[in-house]
């Protein structure tokens, strides 16, 4: 778990991370994976989808699924307002590149993260899987949780790709 977090490679130097707020926490994703940031607009529901997959949106001609990260992280559900933001990220999965939108409370900043400063995520035991957390890094006295979006959403895609969507019915 924590051992596989790629934190000890000093040669990587620093990289840029887009930070966003979800409830009281600040999270970060690799800026190179971010396609676009846009305001929330009504989505089209997909039948039999997992609860945190809100539906699909038209993103300049392609159909992009939208995931609510609050629900994914089992946080309280927030109302979608004018400041609710969708971050469109691309995921590398076994099936190739896929685009996903994640609903967050707000986007904070783009920060440089020194690879040496990234601390491994604490092992929370069986209470919660943390393999989608790449590590923790302090930015301006706040703790930023760096997410591995491939693991966060990519693993779910594997189950969505098949035809076994029936279980939701």
């Amino acid at each position, binding site marked *: 778990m924590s051992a596989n977090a790629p934190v000890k490679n000093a040669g990587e130097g620093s990289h840029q991370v887009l930070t966003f707020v979800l409830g009281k926490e600040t999270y970060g994703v690799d800026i190179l994976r971010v396609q676009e940031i846009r305001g929330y607009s*009504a*989505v*089209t*529901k*997909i*039948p*039999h*989808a997992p609860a945190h*997959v809100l*539906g*699909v*949106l*038209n993103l*300049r*001609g*392609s*159909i*992009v*699924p939208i995931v609510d990260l609050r629900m994914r992280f089992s946080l309280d559900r927030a109302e979608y307002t004018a400041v609710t933001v969708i971050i469109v990220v691309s995921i590398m999965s076994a099936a190739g590149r*896929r*685009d*996903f939108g994640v609903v967050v409370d707000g986007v904070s900043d783009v920060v440089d993260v020194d690879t040496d400063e990234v601390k491994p995520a604490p092992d929370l035991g069986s209470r919660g899987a943390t393999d989608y957390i790449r590590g923790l890094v302090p930015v301006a006295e706040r703790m930023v949780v760096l997410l591995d979006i491939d693991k966060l959403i990519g693993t779910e*895609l594997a189950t*969505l*790709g*098949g*035809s076994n*969507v*029936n279980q*939701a*019915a």
Partner: protein
Amino acid sequence: MTIDLTQFHEAFFEESFEALDSMEAALLKLDIGAPDKELINTIFRVAHSIKGGSATFGFSDIASFTHSLETLLDELRSGTMQVTVPMSDLLLKSVDVMRAMLRAVQHKKPIDAQKVSDLQFDLELMIAQKNTAPAAAAAPTPVAIAAPAPAPASAPAEVAPPVPVPKRWEITFKPFPELFARGNDPLRMLRELAELGELESIADLAALPAFAQLDPQSCYMAWNLQLRAEVEESAIKQVFEWAEGDCELQIELVGGPATEGASQAASVAQPASTAPGGAAHIGGTPAPTPPPAAHAPVSSASPAAAAASPSTTAAAPTQAAAPAAPPKLEAVPKADAPIEKMADSGSIRVSVEKIDELMNTVGELVITQAMLSQLGSRLEGPTAEKLRAGLAQLERNMRELQESVMRVRMLPINVVFSRFPRMVRDLAQRLGKQIELKLTGEQTELDKTVLEKIGDPLVHLVRNSIDHGIETPEKRAAAGKIPAGTVHLDACHRGGNIAVEVSDDGGGLDKHRILAKARDRGLVGPNDVLTDEQIYELIFLPGFSTAEKTTDVSGRGVGMDVVRRNIKELGGKIELRSELGKGSRTIITLPLTLAIVDGQSVSVGGETYIVPLISIVESMQLKAENVSRLSGRGEVFSFRGFYLPIIRLHEVFGVEPRTRVLDEGLVVVAEGEGHQRIGLFVDDLLGQQQVVIKSLETNYGHVEGVSGATILGDGSVALILDIPGLIRATAVRSAA
């Protein structure tokens, strides 16, 4: 000379396959007895260009085979041989063999050598039969097989009357020993020369060392060539272009028609007199299959010639080849090849991905334009009027643009139809029937993806027509029909769809037999009364066949159900009409493209769904008294005498509907696979529109009951329903 030729392979294969298709088409049009010169030329050109290409790329098996074919075709072209039925069969078989060879080479698989050499033997036999007739002295069997058999040296090469060609060139071609190392093949050059006109070649083996000293990678030979052809010096030089600097080359114009007789005599006498070390007199066009002896010294492997006692004379074995193929190729003006190429360049090859990309971009533009139009309609004021006029113009242009892009993907249905003349001919022959194939509307265009998938169903239908539909000539005569049956393939645009029709004037379907068979098998109750339409419908059931005997052509009962499934997958419909004794008609209706679907928008709660128009039978409002509940679970309603299950879309998709009361909403009667009908309960109908199909699977995954998504005019996403999938999904659910 280090160009990597493999990069051209794909283009060569593609062009060759296309060329073979046109050759096949031309062969089928060829009239026995009175062949069209132009058609023969077309056929010849195909063989010629495949030969040239495969020789260049080193596909020697193909080159050798096409060479034999070319030789035969040349006889046809010059009119010394006539097109006969066995010959046209043989030529068609050659097309198949060439196709198989090209495919094998393309996929780097071994060529079926036995088949190739059998056919090549047949080809040569045919040429030889022709040759034996006028040239009594020539070997009675195909010389190519009996390689070292020393044929009478006296047999002159010029059995055919001299073609009146005015110019005579004398060429001395003395390659340096390193010629082979530079990748040059003298044999190919000689062949190319032979295509320019009548070629006499005399190999000078003087420099050939004893076998022990021989280096197989060096060229020891030289050639004295005489070419009678109406060509310029530059054309000859072009042949040796690649060898420039690797050889000594002299080209001299020695005479016109006046000296013809004399020079000819000289050339015949030459084998005996010239070349001190023994000259090999090789026919200009190498013998049908290059016989080992004749072939070897000319190409790379000199040892073979050396083995045949080089010190005495190599003339004996090689001369055998000389009488076999009188070099009398008509002057094929080499220059005409580039001209043909130029004429073809009215089209370009574009990968499908590029077109798809273009389609996507245009699709997005259409959506943006729709959004702008909606916004524009809400504006007010004097400039708004102008803006709206501009937007209307934009809309028109967009529609045109979209149509043009769609058209890029469109191909004439001829691409599919063209395989039928051959198939019908072969089948008719095998079944002993006389069949005339009529093709109309070949120029009707449809999307490439649809085109690719419609071929197999059509083949099946045509096969059915020939095997079961059309009767034998005797039966037809007894029924008072002309002995030759007609199978008619027709395509035309009908609304936004394309209709493809396969009809025949054969026996038609026997309703009573079909019904009896269905009753036998328990598919229909003994007392059920079925309409004609419903009876024909039975044919599409899996495993249903009334054929008395199964042939290898059809009758196994697999097929019609597959045909229908394929058509349904394309979003099409299939209908059967028939009259006993007069024939049957199968009508396939297909969408022009898979990228766009005609849809009916329906609303359930706040969501909009698209139901493909092709699956909709009718929409109606239900009355409570028409609905009954089955065993407390499903609901059914009566529709034209049938009870159809009701699928409540809001339940299946888990959305909050506006109403749950059946008579407050609407029911869309929709059809799934095999005329399976359901009533789809929705809140309301919105409108009909063409929608561009987008995949949900690109970023998400497959969703049961949904075939894709589309983007509506306001930029929002609507899901497109997959009615057969929906029926399956609900069936699974209610069974669980």
